[in-house]
Structure formats: C-alpha cells, structure tokens
C-alpha cells in the first residue's frame, strides 16, 4: 500500500492556480477548513469552486481573492445569515456564479 501521507502545505501546493476544486461537507458542517486556510496562506489564484451548499468555505475563498468562479446550489451561513463576501464578489462581477439548481 502506497503511503500518501503529506504535510498540509505540501499537499495543498499540488493544487495549481486556476484549478477546479470541489469542497466536501455541507454548509457549516465538515468543510475542509484547515486546507482552505492553507490555500489562502499560499495565495492560490483563479480557483473555480464546486460545492452543493457552501458557507464559510466559499465565502472566505471569495473574500480573499482565491476563487474566481463558484458552481453551487446555495451559499449562506444557515441560521447565521447570508454570505456577505461571496455576495459582494458575485454582485461586483469579480466572481462568476454558475447556479445549477
């Protein structure tokens, strides 16, 4: 069995700028937030995000200029409210939203 264990920095460095990245979890549950923080630290650019129902993950990647496009059915913070940085980025045209449902 191949050993695929890597450090967070090393693993996230393999994701190239401009990649299409699907994020696991659902709204405020089991989102890969440590990996997302590392994408921001590494200054990733031009990512297209894929997420059924996003929240903090999609919002912070839009708010930090990492994401240029989002494919999603919903982005919001459930009972906490709307996703302000995602909304602003889509309204200004900086992030393109592809809504599929």
């Amino acid at each position: 069995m191949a050993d695929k264990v890597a450090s967070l920095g090393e693993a996230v460095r393999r994701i190239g700028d401009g990649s299409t990245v699907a994020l696991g979890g659902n709204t405020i549950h089991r989102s890969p937030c440590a990996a997302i923080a590392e994408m921001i630290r590494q200054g990733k650019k031009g990512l297209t995000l894929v997420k059924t129902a996003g929240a903090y993950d999609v919002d912070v990647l839009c708010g930090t200029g990492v994401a240029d496009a989002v494919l999603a059915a919903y982005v919001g913070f459930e009972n906490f409210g709307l996703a302000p940085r995602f909304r602003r980025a889509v309204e200004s045209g900086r992030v393109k939203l592809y809504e599929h449902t």
Partner: protein
Amino acid sequence: MPLKGLANSSLVEAQGFRKVSDPYGGGEVVVIPAIAPDWAVLHVHECDPGGNAFIDGSRYDDVLLALAAGKVLVTCEKIVGNDRFVESPRRTDFPGFMVDAVVEVPGGARPTSCARLYPYDREFLTAYLQAAADDARYGEFLAARVYGAQKGVSL
C-alpha cells in the same frame, strides 16, 4: 447528464442548458454538462496512510466528489492503521486508490462541525460575519484568525 426535473425551470435559459430528444421516446429532456473537478478537497474522520477513508455521520456529497474529481486531497482527524479497514471493510467510504494525499489535521473542519467530535464554532462564525461587514475589520480578522493560524492546525 439528463435532468428531467429542470424542464420548466428558468435556470435552463439563465445557464444556457441544452435540450435533447430522449432516444427512448420520452420527449425533450434538459441535459447539463458534467462537472469534472481537478481536485476534491475533503475532511473526514479517519484515513489509513493509503487513503482509505471513514466518515462518521452524514457523508453529504463527499463520496460523489471523490468519484468525480481527478485528484483527491483528504485531511482527517486521525490517521489509523490499515488493519481498521481490513477488519471492517464496510467502514471504507471511499477507497485509497482514489486518493492522492492524506494529511492528519485534528480539528481540520473548524469552524464548521465534525459529527460526534465537535460542533460548529458559533463564536467564530458570528465574529467572522461581523468583521465581514467592514473591509478593514475583515482584513484584521483574516490576519489574526485565518492566515495567522498555525500551519496544519485548525483555525
């Protein structure tokens, strides 16, 4: 991918989805382009070093995302021995051959929840949304609690 349910939705026009004739005689059907992500980035409960993964509680769409993506990066609460999956093969939510990188990050879903381990972080999410209303405060919040967080450790 055919989607009968979109037939009367305005999304068809808004997103430029095409229609095809059902070759089995069911009339017109909307088809949407398949999404083929370069990467799926997932946080799960347990992985072995080869990438066999176990998710406790709801799997949401994680297994589908792993199947659809070209490469898969998995962070996990705990790296466990392969014997855990050999003893109980049904624990395998997606198999290691789909996985390209495994990283142990306890708390790696924070500030979101991880079933049976921790709830979502109400204080963080509230503070994030308050800071997001103002550019200067948002920048400070990110520096203090996102960029500034120790590498490999949760937010």
